[in-house]
């Protein structure tokens, strides 16, 4: 299994006043992930088919983390329901 790829990591804003709030967003993907399109068909008694498709992606689940230098005093909180997003407060 290949190492995950971090596409970007952005702090917004990236300059803050002391004790100011900011958000860090990490966008990453699993290079091993694969996607398929599955197509289902239903045919009625007259022979007329109706088709519909669904996309299926198989991917590792990714766990996101964010750390600050030891003792720097940052507060870093993962945002519930938003993987890769952290609500942060500067020291």
């Amino acid at each position, binding site marked *: 299994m290949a190492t*995950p*790829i971090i596409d970007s*990591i952005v*702090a917004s804003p990236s*300059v803050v006043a002391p004790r100011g709030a900011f958000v860090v967003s990490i966008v990453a993907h699993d290079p091993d992930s694969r996607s398929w399109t599955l197509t289902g068909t239903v045919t009625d008694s007259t022979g007329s088919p109706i088709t519909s498709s669904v996309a299926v992606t198989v991917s590792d689940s990714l766990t996101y983390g964010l750390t600050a230098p030891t003792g720097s005093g940052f507060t870093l909180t993962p945002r519930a329901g938003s993987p890769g997003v952290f609500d942060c407060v500067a020291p």
Partner: protein
Amino acid sequence: MADYALVGTVVDAAGNAASRTVTVTVGAATAAQWYVDPTGNDSNTGTTPNAPFRTVQKAATVVNAGDVVLVASGVYTGGSAVLSLNRGGTASAPVIFRSAVRWGAVLDGNNNVSSECIHFGAPNIRIEGFELRNCWHDAVEASASGLANLVISRCHIHHIGKQCSDGSEGRSGIDAYSNSLTVEGCLIHDIGRFGPGEDPTCTPTSTAWQNHDHGIYLGQGAGVIIRNNIFVACDRGWAIQRFGGSFPVDGAIIANNTFAYPNPNKSGQIIVAGNLSNTIFANNIFYLPKDAGIWWSGGTMSNVQVFNNLSTGLLSLGTPGGVTFTNNLVGDPRFVDAVGGDFHLAAGSPALGAGASLAQVTDNFDGTARTSPPTIGAY
């Protein structure tokens, strides 16, 4: 004002982990953040992500000490200089221009319309994460009087000076005449004019293409730091050219850089042809240079130390007085994929953990903290 590197980590189910850093600046409450985006408008306030400026140049005309300009991904062009910087900060509160995504914001000379991608006209400015390309003279020009405390960090500098020229006027990635100039974590390649066969409309009639254009032209300065950079095939001159006649260079630190591939027409990946004092060359990798990594061509040396470098062949051409050599290695650095441009080190590399600890080099090209003892080269 202080910069902090926050480390983001992503781990998959098998425990494979990747990490990258993002810099956050904690400053005085009065420091402002400005926004630039290719979809913006210079009539906007520029003070929120929803009202960005269109050009980086507009932001440069309004910044004050301690301000940060966050530039969204996209291509930005300009006039004689893509970005002319005449408003700086203070030593403790520099003005920062930051690409929101590393190499996402591009300062483009528009096929050599612009002479310079960045022109420094003021001190105390930091440039982070930009791609600089297609300017005809320099990617970064830092030769105005009174410059100091300039930082070029984590940029991608390439295709500079790509013209047909037989003249002696040199092109460079960075034209360096500033005190306290730092160049760190940059990838620098394809610097200099066309050579024979490189462009169908160009047939050089002199040999200027062999040695007049450089990655960094180190002309003058005290306290210059060149660290964690990757120089690839600077074959129109040298990766670093120390010249400048009688202008002094004092207290320079050239450390943990990776120099890859030769100039087939000239010896060395660094040429020293001017005076140097109190200067360090340490922890650098010289990969396949012609004849030697460093060519001591001229100048007077005083207290120059060369230690813990790794070269695939000779490290030094010339035996200047005033230079000491210690703990330097010869060998194959065992890059992961040099042909493919991946200069990370494979297991078993003699560079791993073979460097000397330097207070001025605490992380690497990727922004990852260095271990102790550190590894030789940019990673």
